[in-house]
């Protein structure tokens, strides 16, 4: 027993830190090299989107939803449209449903490619970042071609989609998917057997199944911990029940599993897109009855979908007026930030970065 005492010290990681993917502040209590306590401080990216939406008509909410989570804007637009359609019990043309699935899955691939790039860069490999960005660009080009914007699309509208795909989209989409499928072996070859990568990720940051369930973790992070739960299967929306795809599951729950699971998901998403392109019916893409000032009947709904990070939900209350009475969004990243302190203590800062990156937390979804 020593008489003198040492002190723990406090390190501020963020809010401006390259590996926090936005502005998240982590207050770390350190004992030498080891982390004793983590305290996430959120709210730096709060834009009061939910409040803003209460003062906008339903159609005008769609571009606002884009900004809730700008890496997979399509799913945010989609979940709001779906919630409104459920309240209004509205029909959506079959072609629009197929186009929605194509866009949602393309967006999922784009998001996972970004994940692949930035995660590897956070852990210290630069080449994957360039690879991931290069292929993501192909998908972003497809979006730009269809809806005219590269990040905040305003494409999926209440009652359908805003416009039909342009000529040549299908062919370009297929060739982009082919390129990505070819490059997948490059991605895997670069990291899967890389000894440095394995040392940094295998067995690091194990998220136990029970803890994940207790904290409402969803999406790829949950499936990497061995729970086969995907809303596309468990609570089918749109026309996902028509497609044939697998839900990849991994059982270790460490950083490596969270990373590899997303690569598996890219392959499954590609399968869905091929099936949707093959089965794309002709017809309208928008329910013609929906005007810019459209009023759903009074009612409320909680609608949830699976976006690339987990369960994205919208709780929408309508009082029968032009504007929604209350909109509440539930982002998966919020739960993922919460769980960080519970399984990331007693490790090095470098491993915390690996944890943070592989959880694929994105701050706008946390703060809204």
């Amino acid at each position, binding site marked *: 027993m020593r008489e003198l005492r040492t002190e723990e010290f406090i390190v501020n990681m963020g809010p401006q830190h390259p590996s926090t993917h936005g502005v998240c502040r982590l207050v770390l209590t350190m004992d030498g090299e080891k982390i004793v306590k983590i305290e996430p401080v959120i709210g730096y990216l709060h834009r009061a989107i939910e409040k803003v939406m209460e003062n906008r008509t339903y159609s005008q909410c769609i571009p606002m939803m884009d900004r809730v989570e700008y890496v997979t804007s399509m799913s945010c637009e989609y979940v709001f449209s779906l919630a409104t359609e459920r309240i209004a019990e509205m029909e959506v043309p079959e072609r629009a449903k197929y186009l929605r699935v194509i866009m949602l899955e393309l967006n999922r691939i784009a998001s996972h490619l970004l994940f692949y790039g930035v995660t590897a860069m956070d852990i210290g490999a630069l080449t994957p970042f360039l690879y991931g960005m290069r292929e993501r660009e192909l998908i972003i080009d497809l979006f730009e071609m269809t809806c005219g914007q590269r990040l905040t699309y305003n494409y999926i509208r209440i009652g359908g989609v805003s*416009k*039909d795909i342009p000529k040549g989209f299908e062919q370009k989409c297929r060739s982009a998917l082919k390129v990505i499928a070819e490059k997948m072996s490059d991605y895997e070859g670069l990291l899967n057997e890389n000894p440095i990568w394995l040392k940094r990720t295998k067995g690091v940051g194990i998220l136990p199944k029970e803890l994940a369930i207790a904290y409402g973790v969803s999406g790829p992070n949950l499936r990497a911990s061995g729970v086969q739960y995907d809303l596309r299967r468990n609570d089918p929306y749109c026309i996902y029940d028509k497609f044939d795809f697998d839900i990849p599951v991994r059982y270790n729950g460490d950083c490596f599993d969270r990373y590899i699971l997303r690569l598996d998901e890219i392959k499954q998403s590609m399968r869905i897109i091929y099936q949707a392109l093959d089965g794309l019916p002709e017809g309208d893409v928008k329910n013609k009855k929906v005007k*810019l000032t459209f009023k759903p009947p009074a009612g409320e709904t909680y609608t949830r979908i699976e976006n690339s990070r987990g369960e994205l939900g919208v709780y929408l209350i309508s009082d029968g007026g032009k504007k929604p009475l209350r909109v509440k969004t539930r982002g998966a990243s919020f739960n993922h930030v919460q769980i960080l302190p519970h399984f990331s203590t007693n490790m090095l800062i470098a491993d915390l970065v690996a944890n943070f990156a592989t959880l694929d937390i994105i701050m706008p979804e946390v703060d809204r």
Partner: protein
Amino acid sequence: MKEVIKAVGHVFIKMPQGLLVTLKHLFKKPVTLDYPRKKKPMMPRYRGRHYLERYDDGSERCVCCGLCAAACPADAIYMEPEEGEHGERRAKVYEINLLRCIFCGFCEEACPEEAIFLGQEYEFAADKRNSFLWTKEDMLVPHPRKDNPFKKIIRRVRKVYGVTEQ
């Protein structure tokens, strides 16, 4: 001993293999662009800066009806009407605050006269906040037949989607 052979193998086989990949990339066309000098052509549907259209005789299409301002989710549009030379209604003031605008394209979709549309330009850097308030004069396209009365006019409005786009 085995490990030594493995390590030597890595140096003489794996490393040249890796370097060969690097060497191959030296002769490939780069995927990046030399940005300020070379620009990426935007797609026809791209939503960039706003333009106000004119009729073929040079008069403004906009009748200052206010539908675009009502549709705008960012409250970026301000306008005041006036009476033109031939008694028609037109905009005296028509301003867009580009700092508020989120380039959603609702103004273009709402306009009954197909007067406003979003073009291809996307570089708006300026050094004063005031220069982001765009007036009617900034946005009006030039008179289409000022120099040549027989010029073929290509309308750039994409309001009715599905119509062939130039």
